[in-house]
């Protein structure tokens, strides 16, 4: 009973999506309109850790919590690439994760979107040049949107996903851009 009193007292704690820095998100290639329309309001995400330090994973975990609540945008995480529409890839691609990453990409049914999260996914970060690292994520699979940050904030990750789907409110984005 105490639990429900507490729930009632706390109320809804979900925060509206804050406008962030515009240069955090880089669109590598435009997602097709058809895919956008299909995935618009129901997106299943498969998270792939291609060799990250788990810093990005901790931020991604925040997405499902009550504060960032990705579910209000119809975004939820799934357990299988076959159920997924969007791959959220973190970390520099290590030699051991190159084939699993490729296989995950192949196992995802079309149309699919790839969002690379964190500095490592884009530039390999501090792991650049290591013998264990193949390269950035776009050296292995085509990436649609990069989200930079070490690690990026949950808001930025959410905005990155929404940018790939072209679902960020237009008005807000123009204000950020100028």
């Amino acid at each position: 009973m105490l639990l429900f009193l507490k729930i009632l007292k706390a109320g809804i704690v979900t925060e509206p999506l804050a406008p962030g820095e515009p240069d955090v998100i880089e669109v590598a290639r435009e997602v097709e309109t058809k895919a956008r329309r299909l995935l618009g309001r129901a997106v299943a995400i498969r998270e792939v850790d291609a060799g990250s330090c788990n810093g990005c994973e901790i931020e991604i975990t925040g997405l499902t919590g009550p504060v960032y609540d990705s579910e209000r945008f119809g975004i939820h995480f799934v357990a299988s690439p076959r159920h997924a529409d969007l791959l959220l890839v973190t970390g520099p691609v290590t030699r051991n994760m190159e084939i699993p990453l490729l296989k995950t990409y192949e196992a995802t049914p079309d149309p699919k979107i790839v969002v690379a999260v964190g500095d490592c996914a884009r530039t390999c970060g501090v792991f650049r040049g290591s013998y264990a690292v193949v390269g950035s994520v776009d050296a292995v699979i085509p990436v649609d949107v990069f989200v930079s940050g070490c690690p990026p904030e949950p808001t930025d990750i959410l905005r990155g996903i929404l940018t790939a789907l072209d679902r960020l409110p237009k008005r807000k984005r123009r204000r950020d851009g100028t």
Partner: protein
Amino acid sequence: MTADLMMAAAQGLLALFLAPGVVGLVRWLKARLQNRRGAPPWQPYRELRKLFQKEVVVSRHASWLFHLAPFVVFASTLAVAVIVPVLAVPLLVDRIGDLLVVVYLLLLGTFFLALAGLDPGSAFGGMGASREVTVAALAEPTLAVAIFALARSAGSTNLGEIAARTTADPLSAVSPGHLLAFAALFIVMLAETGRLPVDNPATHLELTMIHEAMVLEYSGRYLALIEWAAALKFLVFFILLGNLFVPWGLARALTLEAVMTAVGVFAVKVVVLAVAVAVLETRVAKLRLFRVPELLSASFVLALLAVTSSFLLR
């Protein structure tokens, strides 16, 4: 006769198209109870629409069984939805099947889903299938025995007949047999539809999955059919709980007024049960897998007591 058949078709379709909304409603209620904004209750419809238009990726190890299973699962669940009394009793279609047909049609879907989980040879599929069969083997006799307790007091295994008899004799709804059977059936509902505390419908951890683990290999329209069938099964259990134990509001004659009242009362029953499930899922934690049989045997004992008391207290 024609009106009768049309009514049967209409209530089957109503259940079919209402089912994703009920799952969405439970998810929305749970989100609110977690202090989240959550997806709107109609979110599952969007997901189904999306899945029906997506590509189907099939493992190269999968056989014809993998392609057949989604259709068997969907068709068997839809058949159950047509047989159970949704809005009106007694209808002619009641005679197609009684409670045994309902129980075993539901089990047919489970059986094919378990086979399809094994078929592509993935480790999680096999694990999920073995767990699902364990749960089904324990839950299915309870389901049959719990409804049998009702059949015993109604003198018929026909579902429409059971509902009609209880309406005629309102006191029997609070008899110990009915109350115990209701508790047993509620536990079975949680187990069979993959709800907490037996299975977690929102889990992403392969090691804790039961239902999800079997369908990991499915994609596109196959996944849509399976998800839709799962939602429909959830609603079928709501219908069994709501209309067999509390049959008031069911239309006894096919007049417009009676049917409209039936639709309204049915909506109230579904919402009450959805709230009950959402509150329960917020309150309880998932049971350790080895303790699930204890819960299910407790529900079987409840069902058995229900039958016993219906014999003793005639």
